[in-house]
């Protein structure tokens, strides 16, 4: 059994790496994109909208393949597999997060901005101290959903040869002539998502001190 668990744990580590780095970069990227969508310049808005449409309108698997293989045809170099995977996930999830941020920002009453203005706050201060904290509370349910989806989406990285846990499980299954490894992989995803759900529940609770 141990000979089975060690490669599974290695695969799990890869999946967690993808998950962690994607969040690390996509969360701020999403906010940047959401803000860019509010730009005064028509060209910027159009570019951002097109980008979001493509990201949400094409399968992530396709984007993975593109990010990994296309650079060779354009620049004659390739990214390392894991890096390519993370880049693809970040660009994709950045778009989804951007839309969630946007929805949250739009739900904030205009009066909050006005109160900041008449008190002499700079726009930046109003955004980070007044608006954004309220946005976070607003978007937690939607964000929780996306993050859980991300945990499961990490399995797609096998398409470009990344040895994440699902791929390792498939290989082990073929070798052992049994589905036990696949079942174990399922348990991994379940535990990961249980942790994610718990974290988001806690955040929601913590922010319920006001209505």
């Amino acid at each position, binding site marked *: 059994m141990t000979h089975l668990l060690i490669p599974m744990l290695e695969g799990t580590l890869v999946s967690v790496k993808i998950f962690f780095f994607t969040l690390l970069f996509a969360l701020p990227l999403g906010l940047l994109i959401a803000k860019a969508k509010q730009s005064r310049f028509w060209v910027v808005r159009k570019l951002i909208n097109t980008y979001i449409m493509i990201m949400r309108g094409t399968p992530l698997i396709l984007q993975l393949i593109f990010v990994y293989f296309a650079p060779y045809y354009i620049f004659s170099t390739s990214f390392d597999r894991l890096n390519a995977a993370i880049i693809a996930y970040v660009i994709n999830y950045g778009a989804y997060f951007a839309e969630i941020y946007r929805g949250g920002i739009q739900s904030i009453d205009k009066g909050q901005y*006005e109160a900041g203005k008449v008190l002499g*706050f700079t*726009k930046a201060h109003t955004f980070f101290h007044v608006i954004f904290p309220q946005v976070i509370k607003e978007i937690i349910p939607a964000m929780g959903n996306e993050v859980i989806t991300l945990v499961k989406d990490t399995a797609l990285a096998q398409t470009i040869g990344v040895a994440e846990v699902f791929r390792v499980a498939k290989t082990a299954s073929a070798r052992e002539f049994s589905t036990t490894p696949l079942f174990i992989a399922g348990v991994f995803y379940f535990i990961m998502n249980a942790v994610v759900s718990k974290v988001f529940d806690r955040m929601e609770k913590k922010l319920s001190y006001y209505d």
Partner: protein
Amino acid sequence: MSDNKYIIEVNNLEKSYGDTLVLKDISFSVSEGEVLSIIGSSGSGKSTLLRAINQLESIEGGEVIICGDTLCNNNNLILSNEEKRKIQLHNGLVFQDFNLFPHMSILQNITEALIYVLKKDKKEAKEIALSLLDKMGLKDRAAAYPSQLSGGQKQRVSIARALALKPNVLWFDEPTSALDPELTGEILKVIKDLAKEKMTMVVVTHEMAFAKEISDRVIFMDDGIIAEEGTPEEVFDNPKNPRTKQFLQRF
């Protein structure tokens, strides 16, 4: 502040939404320590006027001078954001819907600007905020959040928040319109007390009896212009403009 005797001076102010002119040739002034009420029906432009002078709406023409600082004139004056912010600090504004920050305690609502705009240290800011809350009778609720308070209490916090920055003039945009009738009284009392302290104030309101009682001067607005102006006795008891008479008949 310069020797300009007026706290607020407005000359020939014009404002439009797109092609529609909603404020036409507005001219008036406010002296130090004066209480000015602005009355009129909905759509008369009274709130728009208040918001425009407080930089919440654009101004398309005319001159506005606040405590000697020119906000706009007819010579295409361009101000930096920093300059505009400085001018706005002469004004304090109390909104109809309070606009308190829901994620901060009422104490924090007041200290926020003290710390970040006036650059006070936290200890001093807290002291100032607590004394203001005390004045409003809410010192023991300092740690409460806006959602836990009544409408009247929230509005009192709004007033404290605006007063914290020691503005030269305090503007009220229909301060009691969002409150249940029984809570209106407590706010009117606060404003009355401020008037006794000689705070310069401009109050846009529907409360006619109140306006009559505390104002030094009253402006009646109708369809984007100042239709009548004068002392409370002149405007309420002897209105010259038939439109004024028509409006007052409803009360």
